[in-house]
């Protein structure tokens, strides 16, 4: 990706892996909001239930994996759309850098939430 010197085919291959990750993690995420460890969706959204999920190692790994997979897949798709809007070396670079920045921001925000919720600090 841009300065990282990753080829487009490598990025696409990673995208396929992320899709596979989403296909496993997303149904499990829905299950934790419907019947896995909770009795209803309302209960799953209470503060204690949300914090409980962050402090259970299985669900926190699931959330981190889903965050990574969905962020990559979404931002990679957005990059492809933006690269079709215009062309040129400068545009490619601006788009790629913007997407990398958005990815760092999303992962940083999401993972910091996980760390703060897990450690309670």
């Amino acid at each position: 990706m841009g300065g990282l010197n990753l080829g487009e085919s490598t990025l696409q291959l990673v995208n396929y892996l992320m899709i596979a990750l989403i296909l496993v993690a997303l149904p499990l995420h829905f299950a934790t909001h419907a019947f896995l460890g909770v009795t209803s969706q309302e209960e799953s959204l209470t503060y204690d239930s949300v914090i409980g999920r962050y402090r259970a190692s299985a669900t926190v790994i699931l959330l981190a994996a889903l965050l990574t997979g969905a962020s990559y897949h979404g931002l990679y798709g957005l990059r492809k759309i933006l690269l079709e809007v215009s062309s040129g070396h400068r545009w490619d670079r601006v788009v790629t850098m913007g997407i990398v920045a958005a990815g760092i921001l999303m992962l940083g925000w999401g993972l910091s939430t996980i760390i703060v919720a897990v450690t309670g600090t």
Partner: protein
Amino acid sequence: MIERVGNLARSVFRRPLNLEKLAFGIQRLSGVGILLYLMMHVFVTGTVTGGREVWEGMMRLLADPMADVGKLMLFIGATFHGVNGMRVLLLELTPLAGRPVRPDYPYRVQSLGTGQRLILYLAMIMAGLSAIAGIFILWGV
């Protein structure tokens, strides 16, 4: 820039119209919508670190009926995006794409074979069913 985005959007509806082009447009539109939701979702779940009161305040804010309309759009978009995405994956990774032929009149889209067409119809049916299910879940109609 805006003109180029407009041209890209208009290309979906430019003649000759075909189902594959429409699916391409909806796939991208739903993808951008889901990405925007994901960004919002990451931010909203981040409020849990602010403590019980901040979290419960955010949940009250999201109890707005307009948020339910957004959730319904998300159900429909995500269902279509998922099923149609599987079709695109099969198109890219399996021999489900049609075989190339000489372009004699009347031209037929070779990539949209029977298998592909069936999955595309399935994507539309599933999106419709998720709309019905969403209405039941959100408003108990």
